[in-house]
C-alpha cells in the first residue's frame, strides 16, 4: 500500500474502491428511533415560543394571536359559515382558472406545435410574457378586474396556461415525422385528420403530464396565494 490514496469517484459521492470509510460517519448518525421524537419536539418548541411572544407582551396579541386562540376562532368561523363560504369561493375560482388555463394552454400549444409559421410568429411574444411571474400580474389583475374572484381566476389561468402550453407544444413537436408520412401515404393528408389520428394520440401522454403538473403544483400555489395574500377575495 505505497500508492497514494485514490480520489473519490467523481460525481457519485462514493469513496474510491478500496478506500476505507471512516467509522465515525456512521456512529455520528442518531438512532432512527428518536428521529420522529426530535421532529415533534421541534414543533412543540416552535409553538411554545409563539405562545410566549404575545403572552409576554413582546408583540400585541391583536397582531400575533397565540396558537392557543386558534381552535376557538376556527370553530367560531366554521359555525358562522364564513369558513365554508370562503373555501367554496376559492374552489370555484380555482376550478375555473384550472379549466380555462388548461384548455387554452393545450389548444394554443397544439396549434403552435403543428405550424412552424405560427411558432415563429409567436416565439418572441412568448419569450417576453412567459418569464413574468404570477405575482407580478397581481397589480394588473386588480386594475383590470378589481379585487374580485375574477382577478384571482386570471392569475391562476396564467400559471396553468404556460405549463400546459409548453407541455403540449413539446409533445406535438416530438411526434414522429414518419407517422405523419404514414398518414399522408394512407389517404389522410389533411391537417385535421392528422391531428385526430396521429398528433393527439401520440402526444396525449405528455399533454396529460402537463395537465397533471398544472393541476398539482402551481395550481395549488396560486390558490393558496390568492387565498392567503388577499383575504378579501376569499370572503368576497
Amino acid at each position, binding site marked *: 500500500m505505497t500508492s497514494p490514496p485514490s480520489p473519490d469517484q467523481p460525481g457519485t459521492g462514493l469513496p474510491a474502491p478500496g478506500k476505507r470509510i471512516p467509522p465515525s460517519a456512521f456512529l455520528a448518525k442518531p438512532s432512527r428511533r428518536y428521529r420522529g421524537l426530535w421532529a415533534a419536539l421541534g414543533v412543540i418548541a416552535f409553538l411554545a415560543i409563539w405562545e410566549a411572544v404575545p403572552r409576554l407582551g413582546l408583540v400585541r396579541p391583536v397582531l400575533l394571536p397565540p396558537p392557543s386562540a386558534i381552535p376557538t376562532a376556527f370553530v367560531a368561523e366554521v359555525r358562522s359559515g364564513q369558513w365554508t363560504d370562503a373555501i367554496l369561493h376559492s374552489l370555484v375560482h380555482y376550478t375555473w382558472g384550472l379549466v380555462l388555463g388548461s384548455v387554452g394552454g393545450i389548444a394554443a400549444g397544439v396549434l403552435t406545435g403543428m405550424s412552424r409559421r405560427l411558432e415563429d410568429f409567436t416565439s418572441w411574444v412568448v419569450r417576453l410574457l412567459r418569464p413574468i411571474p404570477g405575482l407580478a400580474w397581481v397589480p394588473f389583475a386588480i386594475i383590470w378586474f378589481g379585487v374580485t374572484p375574477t382577478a384571482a381566476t386570471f392569475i391562476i389561468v396564467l400559471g396553468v396556461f404556460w405549463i400546459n402550453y409548453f407541455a403540449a407544444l413539446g409533445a406535438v413537436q416530438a411526434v414522429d415525422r*414518419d*407517422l405523419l408520412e*404514414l398518414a399522408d*401515404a*394512407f*389517404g*389522410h393528408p389533411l391537417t385535421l*385528420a392528422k391531428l385526430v*389520428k396521429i398528433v393527439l394520440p*401520440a402526444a396525449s401522454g405528455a399533454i396529460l403530464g402537463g395537465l397533471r403538473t398544472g393541476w398539482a403544483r402551481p395550481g395549488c400555489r396560486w390558490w393558496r396565494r390568492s387565498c392567503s395574500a388577499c383575504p378579501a377575495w376569499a370572503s368576497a
Partner: protein
Amino acid sequence: MIEIRDLSLAFPNPAAADGRTVVLRDFNLSVAPGEFIAIVGASGVGKSTLLRVVAGLVPTNSGTVSHAQGGGDLKGRRPYGMVFQDARLLPWRTVRSNVAFGLEGLGLSRADRRRRAEEALALVGLADKAGRWPHQLSGGQRQRVAIARALAVDPDLLMMDEPFGALDAITRQTLQDELLDLWRRTSKTILFVTHDIDEAVYLADRVILLAGSPATVRSEDRITTARPRARDDSAARALATRIRDRLSDLMDGGGI
C-alpha cells in the same frame, strides 16, 4: 398501367452552386398490371425518394407519373398501398385498427372496415392476432401487419420500401416467400425497392439498377425463370453477380 415519364427530382441545397441537388434525372418506367418490379441501388441513391414521388408524397420537379387505373373505379379503394422499412404501426391502435387505418375516410361502414381489415390480416396469416397490440408482436409479425394494412385498401399498386431490410435473415426469407404467395393470389402490381440484389433477383420480374448522382437507370434485366424459384438457381446467381459487377464498376469509375 403506370407510366413514369422523364421524371427529375431535386432538393434545395444552399451549399450547392445552383442552390439545389439533383437526386434523380430522366427516369422512365412503364409498369404492366400484375408486374413485380424491383429497383436496386446503393443506399442514398434516391430509390426511396422515387417511391415517394410515385405515391405523391414528394412533389416532382419535372416529368409525369400517370396511372391508368387497372382495377376500374376507386370506390372504397386507394390507388397505392405503401409498406415502409419499419412497420410504422400506431401503438395506440390494435392490430385490426392499424390495418383499417387506410380504410378510414373512404365512406365505408364500420362493419365493412372491420371485415376488410380482417380479410387482409387473414391474407398475411395473422387473423388470430386482430385484437392484439403492436408491442405484443414480433418484428416479422409487425411487418406482416404493415403489409396487411397496405393490402386492405385494395390498391392498384403495392409499393414496398426495403420492407424486409430490418428483419433477421430467416424471417426475411420467410416473408419473401409469403410475399410471392400473396402476389400470386392477389395479382397486385408491386414496386419493390431494395439494396439487396439477391432479394431483387429472387422476387422480381424485372430488376432496375439505379446508380449515379444524380441517379439514372443503369440497367434493366428481365427474369423469366418460373416461380417458385430456387434460391441457389445458377442463372439467378449469375445475374445477381452481373448486376453487382456493374454497380461496383460504376462506383470505381466515378459514376457515383
